[in-house]
Structure formats: C-alpha cells, structure tokens
C-alpha cells in the first residue's frame, strides 16, 4: 500500500485514482466489484470518498463492506459526505453510511445516531448506531458541549437496552460500558450510577442470556473504574 497523500494535494493523485474508479464502474461481476472497491479503498485517498459512498448504494454487501472499511480508514474526512448521503432516498446506502459513521465516531454524527439508535426500523442499523453512540470521540466536541451530548447518548442507550431485538439491547449495553469509561474520563461521574443501575436491571430482567452476560461483563468493567 502506498503512503496516504495529504488532503491538500489532491490534483496530482486523481490520475492514480482514475483507473481504480473506472475499474469499479466497469466491474462485470459482484466479485470483481468487491476486489475493485478494495483496491480503491486501500489508497486511503480523500478523492476516493464520493466513489466509495456511491458503492454503498449498489446492493452488493461485499463491496459495501470494503467501501465502509475505506471510509472508516479515512475517518473525519469522510464525515461530511456521509452525512449528506443520509438525505438520499436509497435505504441500503443509508444503513451502510450509518454503519460507517458509527465506526468513525465523529460527534458530528451524534444527532443522526440518536435518531437511528431508537427510531430506525432495521435492527442492524439500530445495532450499529447504539454501538456508535458509546464510541464517539468526545474530544472533538467543544468542552462545554460534551456533558449535554453524553447525557443525550446515555438516554438513547438506556432506551436501547429495552429494544425488542436482543442484538440491539446487546449493542446498547456495550455502548453503555464504553460511555461509562468516557464519562469517567470527562468527570461527569454522577451518571456512572445511572449506568450501573440500568446494567443491573438488564442482568436481572433481560430474557436473552447473551444480553444478560454482556451486561454482567459491562458491570464488572464499570465497577473497576477509578472513581
């Protein structure tokens, strides 16, 4: 893999990307498409972002996974284009975009993740959003906004632990654990007790053993926090 070029010198590299982008447009099988997307993603070049985002709507899961990997590797640079994609009409693309945003952890995605974690009809999207809410990179927010944003996350994740689908509850529990760690660092510790209480409730009341077990593990991790 070549070194990642920096964002401010895209003009010369477009020529390198052009054949890779053409290979995606001309791919004649699902497998060829996956391989072509993988090659473009491996460039880790910001100019690949529009093409990688277009691939999310191609109804080719293998290619979408490769595109998400590429977008996640590009991190913050992908976020504005991904947020724009969410306004699109393609539901499949939207689900993949939310997945990428969850993995990137940029708090500019907070509002969409809050809406999605509790309101999306597809359980895999609610699952990804719940994971994302726990793993946001809070340092990217202005300090005075962190507390309010974490409270919003906390509320959405607590709601997520009551989702009808076990896997969403599981992801919400994992999200609560990650959020507890972040809150501990950010000194908003009064919320740790709320998280512990909710995890305790899940251990006692959830009807899925896997979710109970995940909540037990989260409780152990939260109890070990230096408070």
């Amino acid at each position, binding site marked *: 893999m070549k070194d990642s070029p920096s964002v401010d010198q895209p003009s010369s590299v477009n020529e390198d990307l052009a054949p890779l982008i053409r290979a995606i447009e001309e791919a004649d099988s699902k497998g060829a498409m996956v391989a072509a997307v993988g090659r473009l993603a491996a460039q880790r070049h910001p100019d690949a972002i529009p093409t990688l985002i277009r691939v999310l709507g191609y109804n080719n899961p293998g290619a979408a996974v490769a595109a998400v990997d590429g977008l996640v590797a590009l991190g913050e640079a992908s976020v504005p284009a991904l947020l724009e994609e969410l306004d699109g009409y393609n539901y499949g693309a939207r689900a993949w975009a939310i997945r990428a945003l969850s993995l990137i952890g940029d708090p500019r995605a907070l509002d969409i993740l809050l809406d999605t974690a509790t309101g999306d009809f597809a359980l895999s999207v609610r699952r990804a959003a719940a994971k994302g809410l726990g793993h946001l990179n809070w340092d990217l927010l202005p300090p005075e906004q962190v507390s309010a944003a974490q409270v919003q996350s906390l509320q959405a994740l607590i709601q997520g632990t009551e989702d*009808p689908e076990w*896997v969403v509850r599981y992801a919400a529990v*994992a999200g609560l654990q990650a959020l507890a760690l972040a809150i501990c660092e950010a000194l908003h510790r009064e919320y740790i007790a709320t998280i512990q209480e909710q995890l305790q409730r899940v251990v006692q009341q959830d009807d*899925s*053993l*896997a979710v*109970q*077990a*995940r909540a037990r593990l989260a409780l152990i991790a939260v109890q070990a926090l230096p408070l």
Partner: protein
Amino acid sequence: METEAQQLVNAQGESLTVEQAVANLRQTEDTGLRYYAAWWLGRFRVAQPDAVDALIQALQDESDRAPDGGYPLRRNAARALGKLGQSCAVDPLIQCLACDDYYVRESAAHALGALGDDQAIPALLNLLAGGAEAATPVEGKPHLVQPYNAILEALGCLGAQSAVDDIRPFLGHPVAQVQNAAARAMYQLTGDDSYCQRLMERLQEPNLQLRRSAMMDLGAIGYLPAAEPIAATLAENSLKLIALQGVLEAHLQEIRFPDADLTPEAQRVLALMDELL
C-alpha cells in the same frame, strides 16, 4: 417481554395489542390481517390460552390459499406455535406433517423440534421413509419431496437416539444443506466432534449460502470451538452475531449462568460479538 408487545407497532406504524391480534386472527374477512396476526403472536411470544387456541385453529384454515395451492396462514401459525412452548400444540402440529403443502410440513417440523416433545419422533421419522435415495427434488419446485433439513434438525433437537441409523445416510445426500442438517443432528445425538468438523469445513465454502447455513447450524448446536471460525467467516455480521449468540447461550446454560460467574470462554465469545456490532 410481554409488556413490550403491547407497545410495539407494526410495519405500517399502527400499534397492535394482544386482544386485537387475537381478534384479527379469529376474523375471516381479511386474510392479510390474519396472516400478520399469526406472525405477530409468535414474534412477541404471546402464549395466553386464547392466542394459542386461535393459532391451533388456524392450522386447519382453508380460506387463505396461495397461487400454488399452499396454505400461507397455516405456515405462519405453525411457526408461531413453535415459539410459544405450549404442549397442547404438539398433536395438531403432528397432524400438519401430513399436509400436502411442503411449507406447512416444514414449519411444523421446525416447531415440533422447538417444542421438544418426543411424541413427535415417530411421525417425523415416517417422513424419512425410503432413506436418502427417496429424497429427490420435486419437478418444477425449488425443494425436495420432504423438508429434510427441518426433519433432521427436529430429530436432533428431540434427542431421537432411535433415529441415528435413519439419519446417517443423509450425510451423503447430494444437497449440501441436507448433509449439514444430518451432521448437526448426528452431533446432537452422538456427541461425536467429527460431525462438527464437517460443518466447520463448510465455513470456507466459496458458496455464501452454504457458509451461512453451516454457521447457523454450528450456532444452533452451540459448538463452542466454532466461535472464532464463525467470527472469521465471510458473511454478514448480523448472521454471525446470531450464530455466536447460539454458541454463547449453550455455554452459559452449561455453566448455569447467571448463578455462576462468566468463564474466560464466555468472555472470549462476548469479545468476538462486540467486534461485530
């Protein structure tokens, strides 16, 4: 989670209560409403007597007919009854194994496996008559003469030791999914790991459908050594998570969680699942 069922909304955004769902299932005007109600009662595990009665009656429905002559409502009702754990459904489901709709027989076999009543064993074994040679495709249909996967799986779940000699020949059936189902049942009935090795090898298949089905089989039998191979399989995270849930929960039951502490094995599977969210 029965209280949640009260608050849930259906795909059209309308909320449905248990009373409405039972009423929708009992009315005969609108087949779509009945079909949806049968699914809904199973989905939200509504096991109260009037719901179970209505579902059992729906197993004999004549009004909802598919273009191919099948009985869509019966199929959904059988699936729902498999989730409700009510032994009064066993006999009516055994009757369904004689239905001329393949998919009703398939749903009934699944449900009987889930209900765990060994009374169903003779009727299930009956459908294996003629052995693997008789298990041929039906012309013009995408399936074999019997729902062999569901039958083999049910016999495995029911601990049908007496069926081992009838199941073994299906390990050599030309359809890979049938082989998988036979391997899965043989492992459940004999505890012999070599049957799971067959399923583990399937996780490397070039064909996605086969990888998926082997993964779900390994999850359903809760084979702990399969956890890492499942996590590494080229397939959707959603399915890997379901398969790993099966592996994890079998282990948790064995160690008597939540009374016992999490073992290192359980924590290992949880870590694999976290990666897939």
